[in-house]
């Protein structure tokens, strides 16, 4: 293939534009506030780790970071536990209304999350789920389970039914087949689905902030409340921003080869 003369230049221009905000944030996170607010410079004048030090020692910061990780992980696991058997049923069995149910599952995702704020807030207050990790994880399942079912169903439908039948002939029980034969076959699908669930729950701010106050407060909520009497702590905010990128970056590394298929809901 012949290379276009400007291809390389255009690529680097694109990459630079894309990376600039991230690099800038990283640069801010290793500068003191005085430096950030001082004269403009591309290269940090003084490199410091004190922003990260504050992030890891101030309990409002690190505990909300942990809160986010805890409820996001809970949500991912719970969504998968519910979605796996549901997706299997949708892909393998015909029952009355199956196609409608499958389609209408997605309507949960069509409504803006704000619609659900008030009901969640009031119900959680009365049943004691307010400001708990479980509460946030359950609320996010409303959006993640339909998505997970759709992605998993797409992957599962690509697996020949004859494998299920062969397993039945070989005397496997349905759970035996599901855990020993079927799940290993859709490992990549589970990885991709987990990634999507994690990322949604990780970046979702509105619901998570509304139904928490202190004990389960997410990192994103903490980040929006950094304005103090002394002004905005830019460096600390940037350090927190860098920290919030890390879990997603780690996850995406593991499922990088399957993401495209996941975006197509497993249907390619």
């Amino acid at each position, binding site marked *: 293939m012949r290379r276009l003369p400007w291809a390389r230049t255009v690529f680097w221009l694109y990459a630079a534009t894309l990376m600039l905000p991230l690099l800038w944030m990283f640069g801010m996170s290793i500068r003191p506030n005085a430096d950030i607010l001082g004269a403009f410079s591309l290269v940090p004048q003084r490199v410091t780790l004190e922003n990260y030090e504050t992030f890891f020692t101030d309990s409002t910061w690190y505990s909300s970071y942990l809160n986010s990780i805890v409820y996001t992980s809970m949500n991912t696991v719970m969504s998968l536990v519910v979605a796996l058997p549901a997706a299997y049923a949708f892909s393998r069995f015909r029952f009355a209304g199956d196609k409608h149910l499958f389609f209408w599952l997605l309507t949960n995702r069509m409504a803006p999350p704000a619609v659900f704020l008030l009901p969640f807030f009031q119900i959680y207050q009365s049943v004691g789920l307010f400001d708990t990790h479980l509460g946030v994880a359950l609320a996010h399942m409303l959006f993640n389970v339909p998505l997970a079912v759709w992605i998993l169903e797409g992957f599962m439908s690509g697996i020949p039914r*004859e*494998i299920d039948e*062969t397993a039945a002939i070989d*005397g496997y*029980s349905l759970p035996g087949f599901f855990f020993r*034969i079927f799940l290993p*076959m859709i490992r990549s699908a589970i990885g991709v689905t987990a990634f999507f669930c994690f990322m949604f729950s990780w970046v979702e701010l509105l619901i998570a902030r509304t139904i928490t106050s202190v004990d389960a407060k997410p990192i994103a909520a903490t980040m929006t409340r950094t304005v103090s009497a002394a002004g905005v702590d830019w460096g600390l905010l940037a350090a927190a921003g860098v920290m919030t990128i890390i879990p997603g970056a780690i996850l995406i590394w593991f499922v990088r080869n399957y993401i495209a298929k996941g975006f197509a809901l497993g249907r390619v």
Partner: protein
Amino acid sequence: MLYELVALILDGVSVRQGGQTWLDRVDLEFLDGLTTLIGPLGAGKTTLMRVAAGLRSPTTGRILVDGKDVSSVSVRKRSVAFVYQQFINYPSLTVYDNIASPLRSLPREQADARVREVAELMGLGEFLRRRPAELSGGQQQRTAIARALARPVDVLLLDEPLANLDYKLREQLRADLKTMFSGSRGVVVYSTADPAEALTFAAPTVVLGKGQVLHVGSVTEMYARPPTLEVARTLSDPPLNLLPGVVRDGRIECLGASFPAPRAHESGRAVRLGVHPHQVAISRSRAEQLAFPAEIRLAEVTGSATFLHLMLADDLHLVAHLEGTQVFEPGERTTAYVDPAHVFVFSDNGELLAASATEVDLHG
């Protein structure tokens, strides 16, 4: 009835779905040993196999194994094994674990010995540690067959197992299977659309067409004297040539040629003549041969054979299967010769009236 020999019975089995009939009141007895099931695409072979295995339940009718009605017994509880046309294995398990999966109830050493025995038999000895995706198509199907053979079962069903393999592998595996089935116990049903396979196994054969049993019997006899046109077509590959004929004064006339009718028929009766492509020649070897002027349309050369597509009078199409590589020019004129001794004479409604110049005893 020799009751203890009857192992698998389909009793009035019909399968209908969405207004379509896949099997229509099928009554069959499969005895201990190999039975071949032959039929064209869409004849209902796979449906019949799936019903026999218990993978789907018949709309009406019963399935009996060794005299017991198993129609409502779950496939998990039945003593069956099934090999699909597609190569179906557990991709996450090694070849060894694939073959061992029906043997989970056996003690470890016993299962291990059996897995190695079957793997050796199917020529998989050196691949036991591999996963199915790391094998060739032929080896994948061998793995599937090995898994089906591992556990001794009452009913072993193979649904066109060689159809997706290439020519060489198919011949080799076909020969291996023939020796394997000769020693097996229990009912073995082998379905195929390929007459060569059915003829190689030379086993009792069921001919299926459009969901109905067309004929049951010895495949070699059926080939020599097909009872109906449908059976003759099913057993002929390349397709059977068909020519129209008319009985006139004790002779059968066909496109200007004629030969003595093998048995007396009323004058003016229309018949259909079936000729296997390998019985069509382009040079005369016997005086009695019927001669048809023809135009060459196409010559397909496969190496060991040449398939000559001819156009006769009245736009009738005739295929000649000639030995070796022969070169022809499309548009060339030639003459096709057919020995009346190798013509099947069928009645208008497809029943055999005469084969190999010998009269067929038909009532009426």
